Structure formats: C-alpha cells, structure tokens
C-alpha cells in the first residue's frame, strides 16, 4: 500500500516487524519450553529445558482428565455452532426474502441482543437453567451459546443475502421450488463466504468462553476445557509444567484452525467484528 523505496527504511521496518513478532511470541515460547521441562528444572533460570520431557503432555492429559474436557468442548462448540448457523440462516432468509408485517421490528429486536454482554446475564441464566433443567447440561450450555451467537450471525447473513441478486430467489420460486429448497439449493451455495465467517466467529467465541461455562456447569464431567483447566490453578501442588502443557493443549484446536485458514480467519474475524 505504501511504496517504501529506500533500502534503509525497508530494512529498519523489517527489523521492527521481526522484533515485535519475537517479543510477542517469547512468552508463549517460554511456556512451551516450560511445558517440556522436568519438575525439578522448573525453577531453574535456563530458557530451554536441559532434559526434554514431552511426556508432560501425556501426563497432563491423563492427570487432569483433559480428554473428557476436550470431548465436552468439542461437543458444545460443534452443536452450538451448527445450531446457530442453521437457525440463523432460516431467520436471515425470512428477513431478506420472506418479509412479513413486523419483520423489521423483529429483526431490530434480535439485534439488540448484540449489545448484551453474556457475563452480565449469568445470574438469571443460572436461575432459568435450573428451572428448565438446562443446568449442568452440555446441550443447555450450547443453547445459551446459540442465543448469544444468533444476533451477530443473523446480521452477517442478512447483510450478505441483501447483496445477492434477488432475481435468483424469485426465479427459483417461479420454477416451483419450495422455500426450504431455495434456501439450501440456491442461497446457501452462494452464501459460503458468509457462512465461513460466521462459523469462525462462533467457534472462537464458544470454544474460548469461560464465564458461561463456569456458571452453568457443575460437575467436572461436564466441564469444558477452559473451565476444567482453570480448576487446577487454586491447587497448590499442581506442577507448573503440567499447567503449561495443559494450557497449550487447550489452545491447540484454535491454533490449528488458524494455521489452516489464516487469511480467511483474519478476514472473517474482521468482517464479523466490523459489521456487528
């Protein structure tokens, strides 16, 4: 975008960029190194482990029961994201192409949801969850995620739908297609970018969520990864290297996804954030 010509400026900017990258990365790298040290080495001054102990990961996995948390997190994230996308697509389709009297009002009301921070609603949600039998249930937590994910999803979907040629939908109607089919056969295939954006946003939010899961789950067999791992910090004797390993394990899925989809991920997050 800016055309930097002078080689001196170029190399100093490069140096700056790499410098910042290193500084940002160092703490994670240190944690990475810590996670590979033996218990005795933890308190030593060296950055790299003397004795590489990848076994820490296996131990953290077993010791903390990360497997169960992991499965719970995957389940909750997958279920909530799938539901949100599905339900959001339906609503956005109606808001764009099947308007009914008052639909604009309903749309605006739904958007108000974007403004409400989930953290502020944990108390009433807990009360409600107990009443409805959603407390300490993974599907209950998923439903709550759906509620908080829907407004932004509908907003992004509708914004995208409005940019699609409406002729296609009308043409399909004339061709005799049912609305359901129009959505799946005509609209969804064209709306892939928006669906990817929303999926990324929701996965990130729901995988990383802490406060809702903390409040709405009680038993350790329903804990998600963030809640599960956070339980060990209070325990005095938890070995540092294992906590480090566990933290990294919990970060791996997002990290992998990021590696695969880097640019899409960044675009998706930017689009979602700027629109919502």
């Amino acid at each position, binding site marked *: 975008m800016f055309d930097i010509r002078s080689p001196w400026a170029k190399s100093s900017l490069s140096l700056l960029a790499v410098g910042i990258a290193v500084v940002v990365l160092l703490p994670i790298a240190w944690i990475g190194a810590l996670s590979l040290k033996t218990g005795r080495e933890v308190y030593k001054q060296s950055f790299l482990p003397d004795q590489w102990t990848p076994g820490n990961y296996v131990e953290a996995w077993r010791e903390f029961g990360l497997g169960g948390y992991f499965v719970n997190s995957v389940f909750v994230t997958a279920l909530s994201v799938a539901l949100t996308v599905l339900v959001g697509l339906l609503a956005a389709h109606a808001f764009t192409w099947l308007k009914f009297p008052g639909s604009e009002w309903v749309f605006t009301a739904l958007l108000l949801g974007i403004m409400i921070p989930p953290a502020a609603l944990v108390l009433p949600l807990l009360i409600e969850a107990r009443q409805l039998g959603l407390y300490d249930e993974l599907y209950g937590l998923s439903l709550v995620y759906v509620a908080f994910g829907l407004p932004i999803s509908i907003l992004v979907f509708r914004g995208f739908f409005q940019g699609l040629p409406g002729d296609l939908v009308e043409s399909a109607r004339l061709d005799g297609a049912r609305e359901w*089919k129009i959505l799946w056969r005509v609209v969804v295939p064209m709306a892939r970018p928006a669906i990817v954006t929303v999926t990324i946003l929701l996965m990130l939010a729901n995988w990383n969520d802490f406060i809702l899961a903390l409040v709405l789950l009680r038993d350790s067999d329903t804990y998600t990864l963030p809640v599960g791992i956070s339980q060990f910090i209070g325990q005095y004797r938890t070995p540092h290297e294992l906590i480090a390993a566990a933290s990294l394990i919990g970060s791996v899925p997002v990290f992998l996804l990021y590696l695969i989809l880097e640019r899409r991920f960044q675009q998706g997050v930017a689009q979602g954030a700027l629109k919502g």
Partner: protein
Amino acid sequence: MAEIDFRGVGKTYGDGTVAVRGVDLQVAEGEFVVLVGPSGCGKSTLLRMLAGLEAITEGEILIDGVVVNKTHPRDRDVAMVFQNYALYPHMTVFANMAFPLRQGKMPKADVAERVREVAGILQLTEHLKRRPANLSGGQRQRVAIGRAIVRNPKAFLLDEPLSNLDAKLRVRMRGEIAQLHADLGVTTIFVTHDQVEAMTLGQRVAVLSDGELRQVGSPHDLYNHPGDMFVAGFIGSPSMNLMRAELRNEEGWRLHLASGSVPVSGDVVRGVSGAVHGQEFVAGVRPESLVLGDPRLPEAEGLPRGVVRLIEVIEPEMYVYVDGFTLVDSGDPDAPSGEMLVARQPSGRSVSPGDVVAVGWDDKNLHLFSAEDGTAVTG
C-alpha cells in the same frame, strides 16, 4: 398455454409510489404481446404482479379465467426470463435447466432427457457441463430461456431479456425468440423499453406510460394511428414531430405554425368533429413525411420556414434538423422538444447547414391531436 386477463390492475408500493394504475389487458392463448414504455413506467411491476412476485394492490389478474391475485408464484406455472438472466452461478448449465423439473416428481432419466432435448433446440448441448460464468452473453441468455421453456409452462414472461446483449446479438436473439414462439406457440409477454424491438417482435404491442396503458394494437396501428401524443412520440425513430398549431379558415383551411401555415383539406377538417376557426391543435408529422423545399419557389408561398442547423447522414438517408418551430413535449423523455424539427430525406439532396427551407407535408400524413389532452382527433 393460457389466456391472461388484467382487470383494472394497479400497484402502489409500500413507499407510496404508484407504479401501475388501472391496466386492462387481455392476452389470448398463444399470443405474443410486447409491453413497451420508457424506463420506470411500470413494465416490470406489471410483469412481476403477473408472476406473483409482487402483490397486486388493485384489480385482479386472471390466468385461464382464475383469479390468481393470491396464488403463490410456484402455483401459477408461468416462467420468467430476467434481465440479468438469474442463472444459478454454482450450478452447471445442465443443473440450471434441470432445476425447475427437479421441483416436481419427474424421474431423473426424464429430466435428463428433457433438458437434452431443450439444449439441442437452443444449441447448448456442448455447454451443458459448464457454469454460467464461463458462457458468453448470448449463451447465458439461451440458458435462461431454456430454463423457462424446459418445463413447458403456461406462459413466458420476458423482462427486457435482450438489454444486456450487444447490438448484433440483440438482433439475432430477437429473431430466435420470435422463431421460438412460432414453434412453441406459448403465450408470451415480452417487456422492453426499446420501441424498435417492440415493433419488430409483437403481434400486439401495448404501450405503457406512467403506469397507464396508453394504447394496444398491432405495430402497424400504433405507427399509423397513434391514439395520443405520447404513443405518437414514442413509436418511431426519430420521433414524430409534434408542433403547436392553430386551425384557421381564411380562403380555405390552413394550419398556422410559428412562421407560416400549411393548407389542410376540407376532408381532414370535416374528420375532426367540432373543428372551428381559431382552434388550437398539436400537429404531428413523421420525419419521413416532411417535405423540405426551396422557399423561393412559388408553391412554397406562405409555408413555414426554418433554418437548417445540422445534418446527420446515415446512409442511405439523412436527418435534417430545421430550427424555428415550437415543438410540444409528448411526455416521452427521449423525444425531441424545443425548436428543431427532424426531417428524414434521401442522403443525396443538396441541403447544407445555414440554408433556409420551406416545410410542408401531404395531408394524408398529418396527425392532429387535441391541444388539451393530447388524444388523437384524426383517424
């Protein structure tokens, strides 16, 4: 195939825009009707109401005698070709054309057979596996038409289907559509804002302006017997010259323009019921009917004259623009207005800008319109 009947159809959009008002129009089974009018006059709205894509706010539309005002588009069994074709970008040509058939319970093999059949007619067979993005404009157009005819609907609705094509291709597709109609005989309503297209295609042409139907008739009728000033100005290119004129009876009837007068036969005057001395009219003469003459000749005595300002030669003809007249606005935004007449002459004539010419015409080519409401007063 179906007959279509518009009865007092009107449309007011949610924002208060009145797009169509009081349209009465019958389309017979198998007929090809062209709906023509300037941009924004409500053509698409009318068509979309027929298709069920837009709610009808006034009057009723009947297909085969059944009021369909509230029928879902899918149950009306009409096919529409949109201006930008509305092809599904993620589907192949085959899938695009098969889409309407797959909505019913037609067996797969029959679907494929039918699509191939139609593709053959439209010369699309080699392209069936391609996607719309990889087709030329004309091919896309054919796919859109193919998708419309594949399910053998009751009626085709085409909304400016040719306007995205270049001039040559437009002429060719025009011919193909006409041929297709001749072959299939399906009731067709074709919308265009291009009056040339309308005149070449339509068995019957309906002229729409400002949401109102102005005249319905054969191209010949519209051209030779325009019902009002709007139709007179809109049909024909270049447009008919419409001039403010006063009818006077001084040693015979004459029509007085700004700079002279033209004799009118008693037959014409008698044809206008209640014509009196001093009455104002709008006189309409087509460019090809104007006669330009040397003002020094004795027979040019008294005739209106003007100065030639501009000559456009379009072999084998030329358009001569003559200044010095008061033209009347016909209501068509594209028609000439102001002070210059257009005359269409063989290109060989020796006229040049700056010349003064006398202007006249033959009585039988004169159209007279009421100065009040613009309706035609002569046959």
